[in-house]
C-alpha cells in the first residue's frame, strides 16, 4: 500500500484526538466510587442497628442490597449514564459487577430465557469470575506450601 506506515500514522492521528481529562476523570471516579462505599457503609450500619445483624454478618445483606439497587438502576437506564460519568468509580464496586450481569441479561432477553439470558449472563462478568477463581486457587496453593514448609 502506498505511503503505508502504521506507526507513523498512529502517532499523527493521536495529534487530532481531544485530550482525555485524566485528572477530572480520576476525581469523578474517586468521588462516585467513594459515595457508593458510603452508601454501603450506611446500609451496613442500618442492618446492624435496626435489624440486629452482627458487624461480621452485616456485609451479606449490604452487598445484596447494593446489587439490587445497581440492577434496578441498570433496568431504569440510569447506570450506563453513571458509568459514562464516573468510569472506574462505578465499575469497580460490586455495583459494577451487578450492572455487567443485568445489562447482559436485558440485552439478550429477546433470544429467550435459556439461550439468550442464561447463556449470555456472564458474557462480561465471566472473565472476572474465571480469573478470581484461578487467582484464589494459586494463592491457596502458595499458602499451603508455605505453611507446610515453615
Amino acid at each position, binding site marked *: *500500500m502506498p505511503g*503505508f*506506515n*502504521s*506507526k507513523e*500514522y*498512529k502517532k*499523527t*492521528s493521536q495529534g*487530532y*484526538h*481531544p485530550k*482525555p481529562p485524566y485528572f477530572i*476523570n480520576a476525581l469523578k471516579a474517586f468521588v462516585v466510587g467513594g459515595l457508593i462505599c458510603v452508601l454501603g457503609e450506611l446500609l451496613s450500619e442500618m442492618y446492624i442497628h435496626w435489624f440486629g445483624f452482627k458487624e461480621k454478618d452485616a456485609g451479606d445483606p449490604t452487598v445484596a442490597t447494593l446489587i439490587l439497587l445497581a440492577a434496578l438502576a*441498570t*433496568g431504569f*437506564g440510569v*447506570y*450506563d*449514564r*453513571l*458509568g*459514562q460519568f*464516573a*468510569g*472506574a468509580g*462505578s*465499575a469497580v464496586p460490586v455495583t*459494577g459487577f451487578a*450492572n*455487567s450481569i*443485568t*445489562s*447482559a441479561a*436485558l*440485552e*439478550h432477553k*429477546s433470544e429467550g430465557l435459556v439461550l439468550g439470558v442464561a447463556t449470555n449472563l456472564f*458474557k*462480561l462478568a465471566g472473565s472476572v469470575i474465571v480469573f478470581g477463581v484461578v487467582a484464589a486457587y494459586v494463592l491457596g496453593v502458595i499458602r499451603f506450601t508455605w505453611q507446610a514448609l515453615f
Partner: protein
Amino acid sequence: MTKIGKQTWGYTKPVYIQSTGTAVGPLEGQGPLKDTFDKVYSELHCNEDNWELAERRLMLDAVNQSLQKAGVDQRNIDLFLAGDLLNQNVTGNYVARHLGIPLIGMFGACSTSMETLATGAALISSGYAKHAIAAVSSHNATAERQFRYPTEYGGQKPKTATYTVTGSGAALLSSKPSAVKVEAATIGKVMDYGITDPFDMGSAMAPAAWDTIKTHLEDMGRVPNDYDVIATGDLSAVGSPIVRDMLKDDGYNISEVHKDCGLLIYHSEQPVFSGGSGCACSAVVTYGKLLNGLKDGTYKRILVVATGALMSPMMLQQKESIPGIAHAVVLAKEEGYE
C-alpha cells in the same frame, strides 16, 4: 457505462433520484436536521418489541416513504439494494421479505449508503433495471450489541468514540429525469493504516476517504471547488481534520467545501462524543438535507463520500487492525426540475 480513469464510473445513460425516504430515532429528531426527515420516532424502540425489529421498522418506513413520494407501485420496482450493519445483513433481508422485490444485499459497513446508490445507478444505466431502491439502516442499540457492549452496560467511552445513528434512508432511482441526477461514482479501495482502537473509527477511516477523494478528483480531472459540498459520511471531529490535512499535502484544499454528515446530524452539545456514525448517518443527511439543497438550487453539484470502518470485534480480538473503505457519488442538480 464508461469507466473514467482508475476507479470512477460515468453513467452514460443518465440516472436520477426520483424520491427519497428517511426515518430516524429520537436523538436525531432533536438534532439540527430534524425538519429534513420524513419520519421521527420519539422512542428508540420505534413501537416494536426489540431493537432489531425497530431497525427494520425504520427501513420499511424509509422505503415506503420513497415509494409514496415517487408514486410508483412497489411491483414496478425491479431491484432492492439494501444493507445494514448487522450480521447476515438481517435488516435488509427481512425488510425484503415484506417487499417482494428482487434483492441484492450489500455490505460496506457505513459506506453501504453510497455503495447501494452507485451500484443501483449502474444497473439502471446499463439497462438491467428500470426502477431500483437503494436503502440502508443502522440503529444505535443493535450496533452497540453487535460491535460493543450491552446497551445498558456502564462502560466509559472516550471522546474519540462515535455514536451510531438510529435511522434509515432510501432512494428510488430510475432514468426518468428529475431534479437530482446521479452523475458519477468512485468505488474505493480498502485502506488500513493500522488503527486498532474501535473507539477511534474516525482515524481508521480517514485514509480511505483521502484515497477515494484524491482518486476521484484525479479521475474526473476536477478540483475540490468544482463541488459545492464534499460531504464525508462519518469521519467525525477526529477524522475530518485528518482527511483535510492529508488532501492538503497532495495539493487539494477541501476545507471550504468539506462537511461531515456525522457532525451535521447532531448539535455539538448532544451526548454523541465526536459525532454520528453508521450507515444511516450519511444516508439520512444526504437523502434529506443535501438533496433538499440540490432541489432548491443552493447546490449545483455535490460529492458524497460515505466512509466505512470494516470492523469485526472478532478480528480485533485476534489483534487485527480496522480496515476502512469509502465510496463516492456525485449528485448534480438537473436544471428545469424541482
